[in-house]
């Protein structure tokens, strides 16, 4: 079973039901011409999108913000089960696809260099439920430790954090 089991506290989980067949929803996530039509926040466009959809394959996208600023994003597909599951890493990049720190784009300084995104596509009666799980992956040797630990750490402290702005 992939990382798509119980939600882990502290990990970002977003769920949405779509009135569309699962096959089509999956294609909207994996075919460049479809991805370009919706990916990213409101007002963003995607001038470049390349997807090598196979385990170990990479993607490279350019998201253009309403002000014209380009954000390049890359990652590696860890797991693909069409049309049920996608697992990929997610990092900021330059336009050659080299990973760069999020701070290069002025992103939140607390953002991990690499994130792991797990997307499940479930068939419901007449609709498709998409669940996106997004977790931080620090670089190098800390990675495995963190996969087990960091979410729990943030959970136990969430009460404190909410009072500590």
């Amino acid at each position, binding site marked *: 079973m992939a990382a798509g089991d119980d939600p882990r506290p502290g990990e970002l989980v977003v769920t949405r039901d779509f009135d*569309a067949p699962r096959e*089509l929803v999956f294609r909207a996530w994996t075919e460049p011409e479809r991805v370009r039509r919706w990916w990213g*926040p*409101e007002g963003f466009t995607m001038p470049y999108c390349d997807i090598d959809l196979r385990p170990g394959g990479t993607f490279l996208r350019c998201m253009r913000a309403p002000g014209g600023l380009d954000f390049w994003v890359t990652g590696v597909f860890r797991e693909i089960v069409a049309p049920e599951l996608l697992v990929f890493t997610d990092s900021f990049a330059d336009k050659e696809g080299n990973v760069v720190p999020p701070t290069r784009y002025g992103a939140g*300084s607390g953002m991990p260099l690499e994130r792991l995104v797990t997307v499940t596509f479930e068939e419901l009666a007449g609709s498709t439920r998409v669940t996106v799980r*997004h977790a*931080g992956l620090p670089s190098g040797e800390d990675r495995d430790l963190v996969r087990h*630990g960091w979410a729990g750490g*943030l959970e136990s402290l969430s009460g404190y954090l909410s009072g500590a*702005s």
Partner: protein
Amino acid sequence: MSSSTLDSTFAALADPTRREILVRLASGEASVKELAEPFQMSLPGVSKHLKVLERAGLISRGRVAQSRPCRLEARPLKEAADWVEHYRRFWEEGLDRLEDYLQEIQREGEGGGGR
């Protein structure tokens, strides 16, 4: 915060004892001895964990005499949590657009491959 600092934050949080120490400190300063009590652990054992937490910037330690009370530093934790909020907005808005897109192509009868 640089990503290497962030890595040390995550590594520090990866250990359950260290998380417990942070939770304890969330309710106020404590000495090494007070922190050691709940964990059947030697003072040097606890000190080792405190060093990791201090290096990660998650706690600071007073300079007062022997006890050097430990204090929780919230900022690195908050920064680690903030990116999650950033991505929540990212995905919520993206999925809104996906919903519109799917409606649009299905209206056009371009369900291509869908059932």
